[in-house]
């Protein structure tokens, strides 16, 4: 079974990612599924009837606003990084966490490499499907690059200047 970094641990990935979904008259695969956002929005009945759990994945250009009001019902939301240099997913992650109240598993998929993990984690990602040709154990180290940060973000909602102030008081 493929592996996943989740909550700083390496675990089995028990979701199957569907890049495209079988036609309506074909059966869905068994088990837990990650399905494309637009398809999920259009065919919720079909997924409600599915025996496994269903999460959605967004491509880098897809807007988290489409999930407003519904994000909280999902167990997993995955965001695709078609290339690691495409940084839209960082904003998407923060919005899902900070604006749309998503508390479930937020997973980075696609071109996910060690050197992006620290930033991703700050933007609310807690799960990482590391690119298949890379060592997942090595990638785990990427979460520990820094022990201090300046800005407010999902992992640390107080910017350093406020924490500094609290320390000083």
């Amino acid at each position, binding site marked *: 079974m493929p592996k996943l970094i989740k909550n700083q641990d390496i675990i089995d990935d028990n979701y199957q990612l569907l890049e495209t979904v079988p036609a309506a008259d074909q059966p869905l695969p068994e088990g837990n599924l990650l399905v494309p956002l637009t398809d999920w929005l259009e065919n919720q009945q079909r997924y409600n009837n599915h025996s496994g759990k269903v999460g959605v994945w967004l491509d880098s250009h897809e807007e988290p606003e489409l999930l407003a009001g519904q994000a909280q019902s999902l167990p997993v939301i995955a965001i695709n990084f078609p290339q*690691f240099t495409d940084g839209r997913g*960082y904003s998407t992650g923060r919005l899902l966490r900070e604006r749309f109240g998503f508390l479930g598993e937020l997973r980075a998929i696609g071109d996910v490499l060690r050197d992006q993990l620290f930033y991703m984690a700050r933007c609310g990602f807690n799960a990482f499907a590391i690119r298949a040709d890379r060592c997942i154990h090595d990638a785990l180290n990427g979460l520990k690059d820094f022990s201090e*940060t*300046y800005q407010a973000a999902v992992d640390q909602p107080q910017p350093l200047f406020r924490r500094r*102030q609290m320390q000083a008081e």
Partner: protein
Amino acid sequence: MYIYDQYDQTIVDERVIQFREQTQRYLAGELADAEFLPLRLQNGLYIQRFAPMLRVAIPYGMVSSNQLRKLAEIARKYDKGYVHFSTRQNVQYNWPQLEQVPDILAELATVQMHAIQTSGNCIRNTTTDQFAGVAADEIVDPRPYCEIIRQWSTFHPEFAFLPRKFKIAVNAAKKDRAATLVHDIGLYLVKNKTGEIGFKVIVGGGLGRTPLIGTVIREFLPEKHLLSYLDAVLRVYNRYGRRDNKYKARIKILVKALGTELFTQKVEVEWEQIKDGATTLTQEEINRVTDHFSVPAYEALPATSDQLAQQLADDPNFNHWYQQNVNAHKVSGYSIVTFSLKPTGVAPGDVTDKQLEAAADLADQYSFGEARVSHQQNLVLADVKQDDLYPLWQAAIQHGFATPNIGLLTDIICCPGGDFCALANAKSIPIAEAIQNRFDDLDYLHDIGELDLNISGCMNACGHHHVGHIGILGVDKKGEEFYQVQVGGNAGSDASLGKILGPSFAKEDVPEVISKLLTVYVSQRTPEERFIDTYRRIGIKPFKEQVYAKAH
């Protein structure tokens, strides 16, 4: 100056460890070229024509004498004994070894310096007026805000992989010395009717292939909202900026495509949702950072020094230098001195290790141990007693800093061009030198007066050629180097972009072309007019006619 506390130091130290490790993985073949590229760029490391090039940040241009000495030591130990001051308040090393870059960063960290985000598609070093804090025409010192922006932008997790590079400039004086209007975000510090401090926010300026002057998207942003508003602008850009074409990826293209109104609306809608969050600045934080830029221990001095008046009367050369390279200071009895890094025959902005050390000593002796770097590639000692100007000038002569040409034709802004840069279409340093050689008569230069001449080796415009009163751009014609000449650009608060004169010129002809432009100016000017003013009054036609007139 801002002094790191344990948090700042930890972050910079951990960066050194991170980059050392990334470099090792790259050298071991565990990171592909394409993967290492954005990582090294975010650490200012280019692979250039001859060797890697390392760009070191000088946040908003402030540098201490200790830092200057460290830059000198690094130049000696790891490079060929000199550094290059760039137009973005950075310095560049042209010959470091990739393997040694982590060691260089470790050395920099010992003096609170780094190369973080000096390149790459992230928020770059924030720049400001080199006279910040000492200029008489200033509303408030912009440096604390620059430092606040520096911290906010350092490893900002959401904006490390933007569509393209992102540059912010802050100016607080009446005269804009920071080319604010040609930055991705320009901030003018202002006071509103009730005396509150805030920012006029300008977005979408920039040079390069599509040069544009920025547009105002907010007349007044209260200071406490600075960071949340920047977050909102950057978030809109990160989400909607183009990523399919790197030449159309800058925020200026997004602003243009959406129109200022729609773009502004998107920013305001986003900001509404985040404006009162934890990122809202506290007065305590503004005060804490401001305290680092507190007034040095100035002596109480009379407004004018009799001794200086005598020296100016006695020594015409000193007087010349004083007129050109010394500016008024807001504190009585003090002056601002600019060291010219543009003597004839030296690449504009190049300084040797020895010179850096000399500048450090002079800063210690005469200017509270601090200096600044200007985007015109010069070095400033900002707090010099008027009585010290004469000895400082004599020392500056010794070290090659006293060319009395600040703001004049030979104070050329010039990119590294074909001598160093892999992207160049043509050389630019030899053009600067040829012009400096041709116009070496100081009386003539003074007569011509204020004139910005800027040279870039390609349309990326690192040498700001679009905003030079005269701009020169290297172009490639069938493998040969030619130079296109523009007139009418300006970088100040009345910024304008230069217009192309006509067909480009061969290298040998450039000084003569400049000479002809000056002839037109001299014959047409009114007594008070600068070159740019005359151009704006009479237009391009007389210049064009003179330059392209057939020889009789």
